[in-house]
């Protein structure tokens, strides 16, 4: 559901503030040349995860704690999956756990310098 992911990242980098209005399904459909129903489904997904809430007749709005929900959702889903794949790849290359941690630390430092 690229629509849902896209809106989440837009919220994370602040394009949609809290309680701000989000694009309607038709605007999204227009932008992405996708069927409005598909866009609506994406929006409803976010409503189920109460990242967004619906005001009857007005459209979709970013809920207050949208950011936190997205962050820990991504944390225990996407981040965990990436870590698992990391570990798997390390086993295949017979890299010990210590070495792996070392590599993560190095990467972290490089990231911190930027």
């Amino acid at each position, binding site marked *: *559901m690229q629509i849902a992911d896209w809106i989440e990242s837009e919220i994370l980098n602040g394009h949609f503030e809290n309680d701000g209005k989000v694009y309607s399904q*038709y605007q999204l*459909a*227009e932008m*992405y*040349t*996708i*069927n*409005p*129903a*598909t866009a609506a*489904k994406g929006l409803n997904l976010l409503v189920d995860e109460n990242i967004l809430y619906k005001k009857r007749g007005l459209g979709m709005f970013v809920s207050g704690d949208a950011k936190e929900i997205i962050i820990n959702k991504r944390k225990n889903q996407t981040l965990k999956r990436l870590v*698992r794949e990391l570990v*798997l790849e390390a086993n295949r290359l017979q890299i010990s756990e210590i070495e792996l941690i070392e590599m993560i630390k190095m990467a972290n430092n490089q990231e911190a310098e930027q």
Partner: protein
Amino acid sequence: MRVIECTDLTKTYLRKIVLDKLSFSIEENKITGLIGRNGVGKTTLLKIIAGFIKETSGQVKVFSERPYNNLNVSLNSIFVDDQMSFPPAIPLSEILTVAGNFYPNWDRELAKRLFDYFSFDPKSYHNRLSKGKTSTFNMIIGLASRCPLTIFDEPTTGMDAAVRKDFYRALLKDYIAYPRTIILSSHHLDEIEDLLEDVLLIKDGKKQFQMSISELKEWAIGLKGTTEEVLNLTDGKEILFKEYFGVNTIYAVVKNDFSEFLLNKARLVGVEISSVQPSDLCVYLTSETKGGIDDVFNKH
């Protein structure tokens, strides 16, 4: 309100069953993709819906009326395909005016702008257009007529990629502005996937399935890994498609009714899990052999 309702629709041509007890219905103001292999009866179905040919048995209702020889159905629907024929004596610009007389919701402005955008010469004649140009012109007629039921039967034959993209975008924009029921019969499901809301898949004259595009995207799952790992994961399940890679790795497609737990376990064991594109899924579901064209080559 259901625009189209078919129950046990059957059509036979000289003892060859083309449609075999096909039942489905299409809701109002939805874009439905009619997908199926060549000669599976898509065009026949559409011509029955448009009221051009008679059903052998079963029942068809369009706008809750039998479409055959029905004036109101003809007024509120338009059938666009590459055999759409216009009188040779009428130049293109005049065909637009004629269409304007016939269709109540005809948008002259839109037709004119599309006509100029795709740089048609008003003086030229329909039977002298190239294949792509013909499809483009027919598409303009289909779009501008704004019929409550607009049927496109392989509308993009002969169109180049750019024109196809324009067509899909124009179709969607006009659909958003003036919602109507649209049936798009096509082979390029991958191209029109995003446009569709529902997909109706036909195989051997029967309905394989009818579901929304988003469900279809999560309907099946691809497993790639060592042969015995994948096989024991998928035992007891109907394998829709399998392909062998290298020594003993295999890629198999099955219906996705695994629990999240099982999927994690599989990943741990090194089985790659990937989603299946709807267009590929439809190909797998409608192919005669499980292995696709490779079966032809590795038969011996």
